[in-house]
């Protein structure tokens, strides 16, 4: 469910307490942002084990970085920027590791009960990275286009366009019979 602005206000108040060294507030911030960070890292990396490492790294970095948050953007955006950097770092390490050891062990993946959710996840995972990032940030994490643009470091118009392109592909994949209704006529 996309988060509300009220939730963001509450989170920002918690983040201000966390920035003063309040341990309980920091833990509350961890709890509130775990889902969003996990989804975003999953979307960027497409691998559960790497996403787990990147998400962990995000929260470890947050302990020191929260003092730098000035409230210019919601703390959720600030943390997702940290998550994007953590993903880049994890990916760099993974590439170096893969160069050294050719055979990497795949992470186990359980099968969830909801088949429809599985289908959407699979289709989202197949999107190109740019479209996947825009779709996940706005649809699964619930950021506004402006906030997603800050996280992805692109223009708001680019996010709008990428979300549309992602949806265009997903709609076509979910409804192959509707392909004749293509917009490019």
């Amino acid at each position, binding site marked *: 469910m996309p988060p509300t602005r009220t939730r963001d206000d509450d989170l920002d108040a918690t983040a201000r307490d966390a920035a003063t060294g309040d341990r309980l507030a920091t833990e509350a911030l961890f709890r509130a942002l775990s889902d969003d960070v996990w989804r975003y890292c999953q979307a960027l990396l497409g691998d559960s084990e790497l996403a787990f490492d990147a998400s962990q790294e995000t929260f470890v970095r947050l302990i020191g970085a929260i003092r730098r948050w000035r409230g210019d953007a919601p703390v959720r955006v600030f943390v997702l920027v940290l998550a994007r950097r953590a993903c880049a770092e994890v990916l760099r390490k993974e590439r170096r590791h893969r160069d050294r050891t050719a055979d990497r062990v795949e992470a186990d993946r359980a099968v969830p009960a909801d088949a429809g959710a599985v289908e959407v996840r699979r289709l989202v995972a197949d999107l190109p990275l740019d479209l996947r990032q825009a779709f996940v940030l706005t649809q699964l994490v619930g950021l506004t286009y402006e906030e997603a643009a800050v996280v992805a470091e692109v223009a708001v118009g680019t996010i709008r366009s990428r979300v549309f392109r992602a*949806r265009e592909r997903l709609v076509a994949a979910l409804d192959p019979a509707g392909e004749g209704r293509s917009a490019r006529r």
Partner: protein
Amino acid sequence: MSEHETVRVWLSARVDGEVADDSLARAHLAACEACRAWATSLELLTAAAQVAAASDVVPDVAATARRQLDTARPSVRERSGRLVLVLAGLSGLALAAASVTALPTDVAAAHVGLDLIGFKVAIAVGYLVAAVDPRRYGRGLVAVAATAALVLLLPSASTVAGGAADPLAEAAHLPVLGGLLGLALLVDELRDGPRRRPATPARTGTVGA
């Protein structure tokens, strides 16, 4: 960009509440069956994405960070609270020791005085123990310290009001009050209770995006 595509870009942003209503786009939708069907598919997709997000199995991704917090330096407020408890405990013990030397020679009066000193020593030791681990030992001390402060201060207030106050005797109550202040500074830690070691997170059993 075709008119269909322009309208669908608008529809996509409209679903997210990112654009205002557009009469031209509405007019196109009213006339274009294909775009209306696309709009319906878009709504279904949005609902499916929300179900997917809600049914996500999220592992404990903050466990490592929480462990780091456990070993991190305590906050300024927590350090202040613990320092106040230490000062209150030590000054309470020092004043209790001084009081022993000033006990009256009358046996009955000395006995009452010793009872009071024992009570203050117990409170002072409680403050020192709470300063070591406020989460574990502080909570139980709050009611004792608050009651002691009340019991000691009420007679003191009447003595001071009556103009018969002995400054040394009244100052001997300050450590009890100081400790209560220290506990008040540690209210978050007391509410938190003893720390539990977080469980090791599961690294598997999750779903790929």
